[in-house]
């Protein structure tokens, strides 16, 4: 299946992430970081130019952001949409590798048979239900196409909504995310909290010996910035097909699209940028915590979009990429002025970024948004 061999739209956006509680993304036990804490916060090494030594910068990894945004959208779809069935009720209609995989989970996770299954969203970590392109064997293909009915017009497997946006095994996602770094000004001064905890013995009610530990966490109020590129963002989400007849399937599609928009609270078209914005909104409202200790108050953040280049339509996409591709042949100021027509600026205050950590496109977006804000302020003052 050709997935998106051509670009018809593009969104390049810059987001601000503000912590509203402690946030902790651990580094793992065996990674050597310059801290004596038992459970250190992850950092990225940034070398001084021309030197072998450098500074460890606190950051939030792109993979954590990607995972949380994806997980938030998965949860939302499962909450808003109706389950197609449960594991227990479909178990007998499966065979081979799918059946043995279900049996393995059923024997190790209590109540697994009651797990609801959805057509629009898969469980990425359950081997029998996750989307794979192409399905690895006939049993899995039968399960995906006929049991959970993730079927395209042509009768083949069509990945779930979330996998269409964020990718699956064998299918590259549309979303690319950069690590979230602090601004240039706060990069080296951002403090970390050290929190000491101890395990309590449930019988004696006293501190348990050997259960004292400390951990590092980003304090509330810290601000990070990350950059996102979404290919074919304005393309409509591909819906699954119920009917055997493709013509009938297309006729029903409009009605079903309307149904999904109502259920998911999407005002505009049901496209990939709408799903991505929904996941940003969910994380921002604290529904899904980032990082560790989410059940004890950690990981709440607010995310706000600062600016974006929005390119919808094939002609615009071609123009935008042509401008970028000739960057080496033109003056930077000319390129930036050409990119201005795609700019949608939402916030006036965007700090300076470390040029070693953000690519040219992110820096250009921030700079254009800043200058646009300054121009409108001058215009306002003049008026």
């Amino acid at each position, binding site marked *: 299946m050709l997935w998106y061999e051509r670009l018809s739209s593009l969104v390049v956006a810059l987001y601000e992430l503000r912590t509203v509680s402690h946030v902790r993304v651990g580094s793992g036990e065996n990674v050597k970081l310059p801290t004596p804490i038992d459970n250190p916060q992850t950092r990225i090494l940034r070398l001084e130019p021309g030197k072998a030594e450098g500074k460890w910068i606190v950051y939030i990894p792109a993979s954590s952001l990607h995972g949380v945004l994806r997980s938030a959208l998965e949860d939302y779809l499962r909450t808003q949409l109706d389950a197609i069935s449960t594991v227990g009720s479909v178990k007998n209609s499966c065979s081979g590798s799918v059946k043995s995989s279900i049996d393995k989970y059923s024997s190790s996770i209590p109540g697994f048979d009651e797990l609801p299954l959805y057509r629009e969203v898969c469980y990425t970590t359950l081997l029998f239900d996750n989307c794979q392109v192409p399905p690895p064997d006939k049993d899995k293909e039968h399960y995906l196409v006929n049991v959970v009915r993730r079927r395209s017009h042509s009768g083949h497997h069509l990945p779930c909504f979330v996998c269409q946006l964020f990718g699956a095994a064998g299918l590259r996602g549309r979303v*690319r995310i*950069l*690590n979230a770094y602090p601004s240039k000004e706060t990069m080296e001064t951002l403090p970390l909290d050290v929190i000491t905890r101890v395990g309590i013995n449930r019988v004696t009610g006293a501190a348990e010996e050997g259960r004292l530990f400390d951990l590092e966490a980003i304090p509330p109020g810290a601000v990070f910035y990350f950059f996102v590129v979404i290919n074919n963002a304005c393309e409509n989400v591909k819906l699954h097909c119920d009917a055997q007849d493709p013509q009938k399937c297309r006729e029903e599609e409009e009605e079903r699209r309307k149904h999904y928009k109502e259920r998911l609270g999407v005002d505009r078209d049901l496209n990939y940028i709408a799903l991505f914005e929904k996941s940003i909104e969910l994380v921002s409202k604290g529904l899904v915590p980032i990082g560790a200790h989410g059940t004890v108050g950690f990981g709440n953040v607010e995310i706000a979009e600062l600016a974006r280049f929005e390119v919808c339509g094939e002609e615009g996409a071609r123009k935008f990429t042509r401008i*970028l591709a000739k960057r080496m042949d033109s003056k930077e100021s000319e390129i930036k002025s050409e990119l201005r027509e795609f700019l949608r600026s939402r916030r006036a205050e965007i700090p300076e970024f470390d040029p070693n*950590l953000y690519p040219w496109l992110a820096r250009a977006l921030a700079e254009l948004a800043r200058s646009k804000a300054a121009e409108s302020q001058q215009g306002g003052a003049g008026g």
Partner: protein
Amino acid sequence: MSQLLVEKYSIRLYGNCSVGVKEGVVKTALDFVPAATVLGAAASAYLLYACDKNASCYTCSAQCPLRCVWDALRQRHLAISHFVPASPQGGDPLKEHFLYWFQLGKRAPRKSVHAHVAINRAAKSVQQMIAAGSGSGAELRGLLYGDEVWAPPSNEFYGFLVAGSEDVLAAAREVMGFLDLAQLGSRSKYCFVELTGREKLAGVDAFLEELKESWNKDAPLTAAGGLALASNEVQQSLLQAGSVKLRVVDVKRMMQHSHPGDRYVSLYKLLLGDAERIYVSTLDALPILRGDLYLPKWSLTGVPCLKLSPLGWNRLVPLSWVRKYAQAR
């Protein structure tokens, strides 16, 4: 090739970037960016962002810059070097590039390991898998894995495009212009590329003359560039000064649509120590800085003719020249 046009390209990578191979639970990063990776990333971005033909490249008949690049590579009118870390001391970029392979291991980019753990969507906890046994004796293990990534600004690399004509170079330039939008390396959804520089290289003729002066039939040679994509091929110790005898032990057959019968030799394979050794002095002197390299008299494995790939820009250079340049630095 009637003339040699050399253009230097510099790239910088942002985010957690690496090109590497998995060893256990950690994906290790190479010390350079292979030419095939750079070209593949640029070509992939070109196809997505610039190509408006709704057809596969194999069946498309349009004459586009990418087609021109493929044809030039097949005909050995274009060669692309691996991208090596930018030299902190500066110096002549061409000579530094050759020296890099001689000093591989000593000039490795700084790396750090980033650990990841998979979260189970159903249990909302660390994903665990049953590693061995069953029932009460089952061992549960977290799906923890790590990526070795290049630490900024060790993520600055440069390489060369060598073309036989301006037309070919212009086509390659257009394709490489899409590197800003390209996805490069492993876990590329978290990695961004920026093309930071492009310049025509002057003084190539003088450099060739300098190399020729150090060249004679019995001179020991050392490798510059290579086809290695797997770290087990990189035998760093053999590339250090003092152990520079080239040893041929293996030939790597590579699949390529245009040349199904061709065999390619990896210079890293040449460097592996083994009982079956022959010294490079038995080989004829090779033309330098050209894509169509032949080793006609080499017959250890019964292969009458070996071609080195223009991707990776494999070269053998006189050891004496490399040493002289290293000392001069």
